[in-house]
């Protein structure tokens, strides 16, 4: 039997992944690399940091700042309201049958971004919107004049983004709240803890990585949103995605490599937020299985 030659086959299993790898390389990795490399090149293709330095000129720092403010505000409020709603349905403050339809609806609403969302909020809080007219006709309150609220502003965009931020928070945090064991609360009560102490010293420290991680995810989610902002404000509000959109359309910065640097900055912000999310999620899973 020893005369039978042992046929060694080349390891060819990776060939099965080839279509996927080619697709990913052509339509995700190469285009992204092109932008990242372009951010570090001058017009002649030589290596430079000048593009990144130029980000600190003109309207660009202001647009990053307002983008970050809107993303942070909508993420913070989204976390707060979403947490309160998820807690209400999880801990039995309201009937438990509400939970299933709420989760389904959150699945829909978290996907309802884009142009139609902008029109929904224009029809509600715009100059002749449902709420605007209701307040004016019944209470004599004019949103713009008396409350300083304008849909085409920082708060207008933040309030609109909340429509998909709150459901996203509910979808992510509800399972984490489910993971809080009854025994922990009972143990705390046996040891004489009040409800406030239980939350401050047991539940919130366990939930903290989940909360912070979800905040990072919501932040990235708002930072990359383009369509809603363009349909809602046109170019009235100079946030990063809108400025980048104008740059891609017609090189408004007059410097293609500066456009690359701007896109690179966007990747950087969303990447940091997402890495934070993943890292904190791994930490959160130590306690919440």
């Amino acid at each position, binding site marked *: 039997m020893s005369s039978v030659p042992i046929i060694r086959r080349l390891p060819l299993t990776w060939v099965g*992944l080839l279509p996927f790898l080619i697709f990913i390389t052509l339509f*995700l990795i190469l285009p992204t690399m092109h932008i990242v490399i372009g951010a570090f090149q001058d017009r002649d293709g030589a290596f430079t940091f000048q593009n990144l330095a130029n980000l600190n000129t003109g309207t660009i720092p202001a647009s990053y700042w307002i983008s970050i403010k809107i993303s942070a505000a909508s993420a913070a409020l989204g976390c707060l309201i979403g947490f309160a709603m998820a807690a209400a349905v999880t801990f039995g403050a309201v009937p438990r049958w509400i939970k299933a339809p709420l989760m389904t609806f959150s699945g829909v609403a978290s996907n*309802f971004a884009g*142009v139609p969302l902008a029109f929904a909020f224009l029809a509600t809080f715009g100059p002749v919107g449902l709420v605007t007219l209701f307040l004016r006709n019944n209470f004599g309150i004019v949103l713009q004049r008396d409350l300083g609220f304008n849909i085409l502003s920082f708060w207008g965009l933040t309030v609109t983004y909340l429509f998909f931020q709150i459901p996203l928070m509910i979808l992510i945090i509800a399972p984490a709240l489910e993971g809080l064991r009854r025994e922990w609360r009972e143990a705390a009560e046996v040891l004489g803890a009040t*409800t406030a102490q239980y939350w401050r010293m047991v539940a919130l420290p366990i939930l903290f990585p989940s909360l912070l991680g979800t905040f990072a995810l919501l932040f990235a989610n708002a930072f990359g949103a383009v369509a809603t902002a363009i349909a809602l404000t046109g170019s009235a509000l100079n946030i990063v995605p809108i400025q980048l959109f104008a740059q891609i359309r017609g090189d408004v910065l007059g410097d293609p490599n500066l456009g690359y640097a701007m896109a690179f900055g966007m990747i950087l912000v969303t990447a940091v937020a997402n890495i934070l999310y993943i890292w904190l999620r791994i930490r959160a899973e130590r306690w919440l299985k």
Partner: protein
Amino acid sequence: MSIWARIAGWAALIFGLLYFFVPLAGLTEFSLKAERGVYGFKAYRDVLGDPQFQATFGFSVIMALVTIVIGVLIVVPTAFWVRLKMPWARPYVEFITLMPLVIPAIVIVFGYIRLYNTSSWLPLTGSIMGTNLLLAMGYTVLALPYMYRAVDTGLRTIDVATLTEAAQSLGAGWVTILGRVILPNVIPAVLSGAFLTFAIVIGEFTLAALLDRPAFGPYLQRIGANKAYAPFALSVIAFGITWACMGLIQLVTRFSRHTKAAQ
């Protein structure tokens, strides 16, 4: 549960529900006000009769279907192969499929425009068909995280190795195994991914606008700047489509659970 906790719970829930439903009510109400003084469907009639609406909506529907086909052709064999032959590669593949959630769509399409322009080695943006293909590929990338996760979850519920060996011992090749053994077994998962893809593609704005294709999203944004009531009627329709897709996903998931229970 103290009375105060109950009140706080109800307050949070009611506030949130108002937040969800008031804008939808505002949108619907406004879309019905095209005729002075009475509610009516004038805006809807105008919109549905607009040849531009029919053209752009048709374009987006075809794009969504093409995206679903490309997505299934790429994701199902990959997820199957990783489960069967290279389980060690699963975290890496999964990580790659999540990348589109990290890199904003506007950056990806920026890369396409610069990388595949008319003077490049693969001048896809030089022709209409090439640009359409590029758009479909971009949509496939956007839908990849959802599609991959859905299919991978579906594969988890079946015994991939046994099914493959059984098929092989009956003389089936890879195409037969994938098309006639694996795919029928993960159809509910594939359909979930497909409906979500459809909901994403149908109203997508950024890619279509920057690649300058006549899709529904850019059309909606454009008439939003020009017409008073039509865009609101269109938004109601778009929301209805999203809602229908999510409803179908629920239906498919429930249906598949029933067949499992019957076995």
